[in-house]
């Protein structure tokens, strides 16, 4: 049936021209004058998809000992038959079996559910006929700088190499390029591409009136120079890096690693070269004299999800983290789906399991514990003091040491005499401080969040006492539990507990309480942890309403109300809050204490009261003192006794001379100062190796406890060799990072430019930007890809220059209007015969409405903020005492920060992100989908974030948009879409406005609700019905398809 006629091959190919066009990325399909079939473009995708899983690299799964991924395998006779006989399909068993209809013979076998199309069969046959030449996979070939093609006749000279390459292919395929888009469309397209925000009216005006020939380029350069450039670029990279603000598994508690996010923003703004960008993220810690920034960058490899689940097995998670880190690095830089090889040799690409584990060995000896402890600062955690903070800290430490020295010296000169308990045993009034600027010495303070308690120094509203206050913040129950330390608390006679609180006016709590020895006194609503609900006692003491928010108020109660016995010790003292934000200050217990039981008066009492729970602390409770205290007075020799006595007199006793009290106060103040400076320094998770590397093994079939061969760090054989900096010893992560960006590495530059291309044009030149292996799509414009890659690499990996070259190309500047013919022939715009038109990404959609409404807060960096979020996003899923179970919305400027800076909880991401296809960041993502759903429509119409923006935009229209209705509609369009409405649009909008006016005039109560939407302060503008009508009109314009697209 199939005779040896070349023309027939071409005939069939032409018949399948369209499918070839889309399957093999519009390569040679339509060009019938050069019909040589090439292995990489035509044949490999077919073999890879249909044959390699049984006849490829994976030796374990290989059937019949046949390999079709190498010429050696394919040309060698097996049992007398040649799988492929170059030039002779009839003698090739591959071809015979492909054609066979006998289920026992047929390939691929029926049970594989794979099937070759007629065109695919013809390609195989034609290729064998042409001699079955093999090629190395294109992406593994070295990157050479291709010659820029000569201009096709009849088209204007191309300014950029990009356009020359595109034109070359486009003309061959018979497409005509689109005209340049108008300036208004262009500036909006560029602004969103480079900053994620629309242009301002003044930028628009400047561009529209710029008559110079370089107008477009200077507009682009302007945006490349803004700080928002780094934010937009970072956003894409953070998907790849899987950055988020929680650990991701089980409790999914908060993680403090936003300094890494800010590092990425800054790196793009500084135009850090991509090779350095690479090296610092993978091995910044190993660079000589690594800076804080370089170490911060290693946070890349701390962004994976981690667990602290009780009962989880550490070895298993150490393995899983190393797999994730390896697979992510390989995915991000080499575009390979290396993760496949964790269980078996890669079926399609030359990556064996052992090679995967050699890569894994670079990350297996990570210093971070497999169990993250559910805290935000899981080690290795880098404190990042600024210059000023470093200096202040040194100064504060010196001052503290000096103050303590003076105190100790003075105390050492005193003698101590036990009070006469017979005659001096009369109870005396006194005050015990539970906490004030700090907790008492060596007092342990625990917190529901598992993180350290939060002290605020010099709050803007002023502390009630001293400088510091304790802050509690939670969507639900939280408590700080003090465990008695060096200064025991005792229940006095007629004892009273008092403390000061200030409830946050914007987020007042529902209740607060103090719990002593398990007994609770509460104000407002009583609260418990979920777990304690069952044991909730009836003996709790309700003391009425909460105090008013916004002012310091003293609350107190008698200890006897909690049935606490005078003379008994208080081991645990907890301050608790139920939802909202509470500041606590100076908490004391007053009452009359008999010296017989008062440890502040009697050293003997104090020594005796010492509990085993106290922990040693360098400054608060030195180990030698603690040892003597725990051993008891009887065991202490005279030296020990003297040490304890000096400690007691200096730091504890209330009956010392005023001079000592002053020195003690000075020391405590110095301690507070040091703590304040120290706490103000923020930190971030960083990557580091254990000092001694762990032995690393192949995990058989991906199972952590099934050790195979032992492996050393190394790279797969198919790639250029890895050069070690030091001759001896193992290859390091730094060697590995440098290997990734070595000029001879065939993948890194291609993968990087392709991802930037995807970011700018919507689809990569290699559509499967996540897979450059043989299962991925070949590039639509291979020479262009290589030209970009080589140029990028040889330019010193200059990112801004690369972006500029792409954005200033004619290809990018074309109109994106789509004719029915083009829609049919090239729906995905792979030939680039029109400009890109893309729905905005999740962050851009939100940032856009904030920007045009004037609400956007441009503050950069810092901890993720918590804007509006509907109730019950975190709550129904969060683990009982996860510190991210209850969402506590912030207020003021935090509501309107860029989406990049919004808190991202992985197991329940914010709807404004997930509804618009943003990933949950549980694993690396190099390409987002763009879907179109009714949930998106509902969100854009009704979410308070969008409706408040519409309201604020309506206020702007009325204040800034001129006085006539036409002028206002023009202004609104101009601000949102950077263009003027045409006649029909103006008419439609005016009719819509009129209709809304009528509705709201008849319903002023509705109008009043509309003009107060959201928390942003309404600006006084027109009467409510008029403003409400404009709000609906703004809501309409913000929902236009054109608004949510980059056109």
């Amino acid at each position, binding site marked *: 049936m199939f005779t040896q006629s070349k023309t027939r091959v071409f005939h069939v190919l032409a018949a399948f021209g369209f499918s070839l066009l889309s399957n093999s990325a519009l390569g040679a399909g339509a060009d019938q004058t050069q019909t040589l079939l090439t292995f990489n473009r035509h044949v490999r995708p077919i073999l890879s998809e249909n044959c390699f899983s049984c006849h490829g690299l994976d030796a374990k799964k290989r059937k019949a000992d046949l390999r079709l991924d190498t010429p050696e395998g394919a040309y060698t006779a097996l049992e007398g038959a040649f799988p492929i006989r170059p030039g002779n399909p009839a003698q090739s068993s591959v071809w015979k079996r492909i054609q066979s209809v006998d289920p026992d013979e047929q390939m691929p076998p029926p049970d594989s559910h794979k099937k070759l199309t007629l065109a695919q069969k013809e390609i195989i046959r034609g290729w064998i006929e042409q001699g079955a030449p093999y090629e190395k996979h294109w992406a593994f070939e070295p990157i050479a700088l291709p010659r820029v093609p000569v201009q096709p006749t009849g088209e204007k000279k191309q300014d950029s190499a990009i356009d020359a390459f595109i034109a070359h292919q486009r003309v061959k395929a018979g497409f005509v390029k689109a005209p340049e888009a108008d300036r208004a469309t262009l500036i909006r397209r560029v602004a969103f591409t480079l900053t994620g925000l629309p242009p301002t009216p003044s930028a628009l005006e400047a561009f529209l009136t710029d008559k110079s020939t370089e107008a477009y380029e200077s507009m682009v350069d302007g945006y490349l120079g803004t700080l928002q450039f780094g934010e937009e670029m970072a956003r894409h990279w953070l998907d790849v890096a899987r950055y988020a603000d929680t650990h991701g598994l089980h409790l999914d508690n908060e993680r403090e690693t936003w300094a890494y996010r800010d590092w990425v923003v800054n790196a793009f703004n500084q135009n850090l070269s991509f090779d350095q960008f690479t090296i610092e993220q993978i091995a910044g810690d190993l660079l000589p004299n690594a800076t804080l920034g370089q170490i911060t960058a290693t946070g890349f490899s701390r962004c994976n999800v981690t667990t602290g689940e009780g009962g989880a*097995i550490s070895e298993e998670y150490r393995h899983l983290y190393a797999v994730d880190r390896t697979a992510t690095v390989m995915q991000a830089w080499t575009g390979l789906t290396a993760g496949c090889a964790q269980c078996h040799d890669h079926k399609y690409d030359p990556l064996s399991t052992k090679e995967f584990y050699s890569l894994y060995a670079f990350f297996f000896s990570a210093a971070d514990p497999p169990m993250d402890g559910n805290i935000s600062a899981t080690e290795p955690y880098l404190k990042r003091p600024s210059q000023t903070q470093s200096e202040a800290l040194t100064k504060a430490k010196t001052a503290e040491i000096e103050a303590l020295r003076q105190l100790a010296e003075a105390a050492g000169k005193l003698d101590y005499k036990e009070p006469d308990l017979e005659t001096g045993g009369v109870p005396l009034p006194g005050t015990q401080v539970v906490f004030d600027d700090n907790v008492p010495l060596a007092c342990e303070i625990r917190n529901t969040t598992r993180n350290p308690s939060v002290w605020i120094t010099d709050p803007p509203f002023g502390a009630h006492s001293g400088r510091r206050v304790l802050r509690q913040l939670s969507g639900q129950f939280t408590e700080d539990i003090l465990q008695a330390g060096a200064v025991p608390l005792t229940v006095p006679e007629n004892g009273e507990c008092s403390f000061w609180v200030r409830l946050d006016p914007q987020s007042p709590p529902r209740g607060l309480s103090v719990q002593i020895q398990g007994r609770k006194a509460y104000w407002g609503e009583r609260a418990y942890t979920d777990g304690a609900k069952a044991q909730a006692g009836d003996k709790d003491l309700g003391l009425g309403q909460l105090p008013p928010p916004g002012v310091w108020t003293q609350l107190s109660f008698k200890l006897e109300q909690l049935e606490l016995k005078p003379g008994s010790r208080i081991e645990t003292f907890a301050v608790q809050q139920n939802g909202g934000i509470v500041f606590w200050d100076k908490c004391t217990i007053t009452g009359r204490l008999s010296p017989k039981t008062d440890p502040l008066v009697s050293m003997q009492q104090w020594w005796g009261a010492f509990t085993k729970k106290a922990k040693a602390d360098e400054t608060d409770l030195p180990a030698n003192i603690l040892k003597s205290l725990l051993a008891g007075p009887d065991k202490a020799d005279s030296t020990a006794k003297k040490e304890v006595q000096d400690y007691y007199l200096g730091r504890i006793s209330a009956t010392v001379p005023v001079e000592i009290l002053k020195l003690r106060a000075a020391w405590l103040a110095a301690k507070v100062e040091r703590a304040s400076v120290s706490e103000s320094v923020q930190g971030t998770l960083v990557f580091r190796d254990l000092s001694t590397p762990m032995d690393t093994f192949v995990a058989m079939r991906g199972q952590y406890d099934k050790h195979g061969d032992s492996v050393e760090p190394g790279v797969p054989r198919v790639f250029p060799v890895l050069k070690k900096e030091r001759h001896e010893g193992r290859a390091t992560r730094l060697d590995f990072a440098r290997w990734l960006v070595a000029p001879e590495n065939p993948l890194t530059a291609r993968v990087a430019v392709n991802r930037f291309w995807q970011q700018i044009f919507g689809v990569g030149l290699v559509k499967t930007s996540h897979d450059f292996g043989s299962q991925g799509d070949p590039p639509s414009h291979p020479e262009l890809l290589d030209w970009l890659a080589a140029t990028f690499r040889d330019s010193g990996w200059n990112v801004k220059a690369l972006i500029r070259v792409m954005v200033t190309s004619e290809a990018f500047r074309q109109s994106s209007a789509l004719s029915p013919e083009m829609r049919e022939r090239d729906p995905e715009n792979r030939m680039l015969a029109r400009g890109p*038109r893309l729905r905005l990404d999740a962050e851009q959609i939100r940032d856009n409405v904030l920007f045009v409404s004037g609400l956007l807060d441009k503050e950069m960096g810092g901890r993720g903020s918590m804007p509006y979020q509907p109730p019950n996003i975190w709550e129904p899923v969060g683990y*009982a005492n996860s510190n991210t179970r209850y969402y506590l919305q912030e207020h003021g400027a935090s509501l309107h920060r860029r989406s990049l800076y919004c808190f991202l909880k992985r197991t329940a991401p914010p709807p404004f992100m997930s509804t618009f*296809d943003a990933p949950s960041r549980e694993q690396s993502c190099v390409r987002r*989908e763009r879907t*179109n759903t009714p949930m998106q429509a509902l969100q854009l119409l*009704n979410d308070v974030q969008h409706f408040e923006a519409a309201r604020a935009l309506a206020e702007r229209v009325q204040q800034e948009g001129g006085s006539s209705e036409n002028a206002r509609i023009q202004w609104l369009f101009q601000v949102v879409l950077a263009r003027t409405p045409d006649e*029909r649009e103006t008419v439609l909008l005016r009719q819509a406005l009129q209709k809304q006016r009528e509705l709201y005039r008849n319903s002023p109560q509705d109008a009043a609700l509309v003009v107060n939407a959201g928390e942003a302060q309404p600006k006084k503008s027109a009467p409510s019905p008029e403003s409400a009508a404009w709000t609906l009109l703004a809501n309409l314009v913000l*929902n236009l398809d054109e608004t949510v697209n980059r056109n």
Partner: protein
Amino acid sequence: MDPLVEWTNLQTRRQFFHHSGIRLGGLGLASVLGHNALGAPTSSARMNPPLPDLPHFAPKAKAVIYLHMNGGPSQLDTWDYKPHLADWYDKDLPPSVQGGQRLTGMTSKQTRFPVAPSLFEFSRYGQCGRWASELVKHTALHSDDIALVKTVHTNAINHDPACTFVMTGREVPGYASLGSWLSYGLGSESDNLPAFVVLTPTWKSTGAAQALFTRMWSSGFLPGRFNGVALRSSGDPVLYIQNPDGVSTASRRSMLDTLAEMNTHRFQTMGDPDIQNRISQYEMAFRMQTSVPELVDLSGETAATLESYGQDVSKQGTFASSAIMARRLVERGVRVVQILHRGWDQHGNLPSEIRLQCQDTDQAIGALLADLKQRGLFESTLVVWGGEFGRTVYSQGTLTKTNYGRDHHPRNFCMWMAGAGVKGGAVLGESDDFSYNIASDPVHLNDLNATILHLCGIDHERLSVKFQGLDARLTGVEKQKVVSQILS
């Protein structure tokens, strides 16, 4: 959806806009799309049709209701009856039975592994005479309609990976959930409601409840529109379904009419079919604003029906109200309904805590089965009940005559199915005398998922998408088999 299919679907709308002049409105558009009065679309015009080659064969089930008891319900106290364990009270589990199975870090350091027989009463139910505990008696009354598998096993021993596995077939995040696969493959029967709806009701146990993860209903590597949509237990039943305060339906409708006209006008310049798609999504959003309140409004239910689900049924967000909502959703053409009920992780105080959990769920599940049958939906609806793993026969913590706890046990546990294509009264698999190992007929969770797909007309080996260079499937890379023994 395949862009081509999407495009074909849009033709109707395009012609409408071009030829009939512009007068959009919910009704106008609905009639163009070929909706009947109840909003059920004719199949040719469905907004979310199935993939071109699906179903692979005639499906038994049109819809799936999946009841997931999150935390790991004890098989020993519900469906796996082991009467002779009474003789083993407080004796150590024989090492030969324990067999060196891996234990969680929570009990691996226990010095003893005392056997804790169930405190609950077991009786026989139905013609088939199935043993079941008093805790699940309402469900057990339907034993003749239920196929029970006593030997389900899974890989993971901790919650996070096990929950991820039961729903996505993988222990690590990033894969598509069962419901997402089904809506991806089979599309939606409804143009007014999402194809895949998730409910996360309240629960009664008092201990710290294990978490859920949105990845359990996430589309993973599939496009985001196949995510499960949460029907929320308080506030708006569907996110942003309510107009903002002060925006009336009339105001919204008027605004949407202009929006559609503006977008159509824009389409005439740009020619991008995505614009038309957006227009239809806004119309569906508007229809949902009507269909969702109607969905959650129980006033049309008879007193007898409501009563059958128990008194919590009218309390929004309870399991009982979720159960009746599941029926209402299926009735309206929703493809997959998942109820994820928390609070089943009984390491301690198991007897009192599991009793609370069953009080929360059992009556409503029994009522749901009866309700589906009565309305003729049972034959076309598959109901699945299970958890991410089972629990140990030995007590975690102190064992007393009235109290015990149980640790995680992935090696064997019980799940059941009922409804479309399921052989009622069937039982598959036996555990050993201690419900600690599988004695016969192991069924891996992936086998069970393959079976669910099968009942929906899907060959699980042929429903795959490329992800990380592999043909990713719900059921993983290993060979899985449909559990034909429980199929009718």
